[in-house]
């Protein structure tokens, strides 16, 4: 399975090792790890909700799109749900391709879509209480990078 949605903490390095070892002849592997931030104490805990059985197929479809578009030989996505503390990894994306540009663009594409569109609901718990958050405007703007005829230069 190239996508896992899980409540348990994971180690990005271990995920990268496992992913890389399973690839026979990749030239380049790119990984992205998103880590929960303290924001100077403003965020004490993140609560992330998925719709299991709906969220994974959505990500699988995104992975297939990336795989075709960037000629990727492998993709791995791990996404935490539940209670996440500052410093813990929230999301891990890894891509493998024959050439490094494809691997970079594939990972970038996956993250832009995961951050803005993926079926997750996120609640930030801080000293002033909790609030549900929506994607930042910047996340939506990132998405427009991929809707042109060409991939970003």
């Amino acid at each position, binding site marked *: 399975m190239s996508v896992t949605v899980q409540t348990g903490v994971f180690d990005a390095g271990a995920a990268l090792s496992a992913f890389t070892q399973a690839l026979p002849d990749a030239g380049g592997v790119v990984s992205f790890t998103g880590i929960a931030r303290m924001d100077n104490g403003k965020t004490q805990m993140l609560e992330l*909700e998925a*719709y299991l059985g*709906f969220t994974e197929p959505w990500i699988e479809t995104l992975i297939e799109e990336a795989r075709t578009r960037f000629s990727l030989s492998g993709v791995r996505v791990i996404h935490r749900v539940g209670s996440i503390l500052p410093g813990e990894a929230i999301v891990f994306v890894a891509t493998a391709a024959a050439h490094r540009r494809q691997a970079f663009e594939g990972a970038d594409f996956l993250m832009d879509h995961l951050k803005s569109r993926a079926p997750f609901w996120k609640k930030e718990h801080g000293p002033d209480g909790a609030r549900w958050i929506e994607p930042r405007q910047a996340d939506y703007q990132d998405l427009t990078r991929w809707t042109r005829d060409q991939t970003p230069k």
Partner: protein
Amino acid sequence: MARVLLFGALRDLAGWREQIFEGVSDLDGLRSHIARLYPDLAEAISGPGVQFAVDKALVRGNVSLSAQTEIAFLPPMSGG
């Protein structure tokens, strides 16, 4: 019979995550049902950006609900 699931802010608003509604045959019927029992929730799920999934597939408009259908009300997704 419809098993209704709420996510994100809708769940907090309603105060429940999952509930079974009997005697509803389509999505419009379910909405009316909800409007009688939970007017605040009914208003929220009519708001912009709320999507509906029937048996884990997004739908638009009215759809008939067979027995043991799972309906999810999905507020705007925050991304991962």
